[in-house]
């Protein structure tokens, strides 16, 4: 059984550590906030200028001056702080954000990532993604293992225009957890009931399989 988007987020949440400052991208990464272990102090950074992002507001309590980088209405937690966009990307570039989680269209076996542009389609822009991938010290990609046509998104090299190079450290897909190593994608865990063979078949880039591969415990 492939993981659901919620389960991908749940698995990524297990990478969090107490005291982490974390930037969560739009889509599956946003869901990670729902699985921060109780009692663990994790501070969420939103690159439009906020540390200490809280959950969505209660109905009727939306504040138009308080949004996240996905332009959604949000709240803050105690200890939050607002700043301008230059300082926001300043702290990202300076490596002060411990973990960045984002989605991807393609990841290559050397850690390149493509997630902003499809030639021939309307290009909306890279937003903050290029800054994040060029600067974050630890990047986890949350993605589907294959595209809707069933083609692998884990490739020898990206075919789409790049967002950044040699930056992805780990991938949590619906099928597997993989580290990006100097030798290629290293399989760490597989989704419950998904075989190593299926992952091999759906991974176009170089896959390293060593010893028994445990199932992802959700």
């Amino acid at each position, binding site marked *: 059984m492939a993981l659901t988007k919620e389960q991908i987020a749940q698995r990524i949440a297990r990478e969090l550590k107490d005291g982490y400052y974390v930037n969560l991208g739009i889509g599956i990464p946003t869901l990670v906030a729902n699985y921060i272990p109780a009692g663990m102090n994790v501070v969420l950074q939103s690159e*439009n200028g906020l540390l200490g992002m809280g959950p*969505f507001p209660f109905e009727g309590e939306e504040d138009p001056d308080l949004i996240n980088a996905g332009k959604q209405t949000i709240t803050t937690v105690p200890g939050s702080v607002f700043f301008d966009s230059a300082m926001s*990307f300043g702290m990202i570039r300076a490596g002060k954000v411990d973990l960045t989680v984002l989605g991807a269209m393609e990841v290559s076996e050397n850690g390149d990532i493509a997630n902003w542009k499809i030639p021939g389609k309307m290009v909306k822009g*890279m937003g903050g993604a290029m800054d994040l991938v060029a600067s974050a010290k630890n990047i986890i990609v949350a993605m589907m293992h294959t595209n809707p046509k069933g083609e692998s998104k884990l490739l020898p090299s990206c075919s789409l225009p790049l967002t950044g190079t040699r930056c992805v450290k780990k991938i949590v897909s619906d099928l597997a957890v993989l580290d990006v190593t100097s030798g290629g994608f290293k399989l760490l865990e597989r989704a419950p009931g998904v075989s190593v063979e299926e992952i091999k078949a759906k991974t176009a880039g170089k896959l390293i399989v060593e010893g028994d591969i445990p199932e992802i415990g959700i």
Partner: protein
Amino acid sequence: MNKVVASAEQAIKDIPDGAVLMLGGFGLCGIPENCIAALVKKKVSNLTCISNNAGVDDFGIGLMLKEKQVKKMISSYVGENAEFERQLLSGELQVELIPQGTLATRCMAAGYGMPAFFTPAGVGTEVAEGKEIRNFNGKDYLLEIAFDADFAIVKAWKGDTDGNLVYKETARNFNPLMAMAGKITIAEVEELVPVGELDPDAIHTPGIYVHRIFKGSHYEKRIEQRTVRKKN
């Protein structure tokens, strides 16, 4: 020294066709609603707009796009706007896409008198094409240059008559950076107070950067993505 003007119309009255403008805001949050309305009314055209986003079809910079006042957008993300897409595909509109942190820092660099700086964003991508790449401490960086804008138009929460500004929550975003970067900076504020009322330790934009200020009105503050939880 009198920086206070009566209205948005007064504040923008000398912005000519073909000007390069910076417009503060992130999405529809913290945008200079009054000045945008005045620019539409004045029918200024052929504008180059530096702004993180391009509004939606019927709000924000989208209102200027609808009237075909914009020649070129310099932004990091321009989704959520069908008219924008139409003009872009038809070639009526030019778009330059810039990584968001680079956009912010190019504003700050202008306000800080730094003509250029190095940043890693975009190395190894098409953003790096034609740019100088230099390695510092084992990592590659691009040389990026400060923006050069004729007018910066920003929205603050409170301002005093000397032009000192305070922003609210995430409506700060690009506003203080652009406020520093314009040759002429125009600020619209929700509350205009006498000098001495703002806490000198808590001012985000010192008045030295601001040339004109006025109290805006009828702020709609439209929400782009209303996301809520249910109570219990």
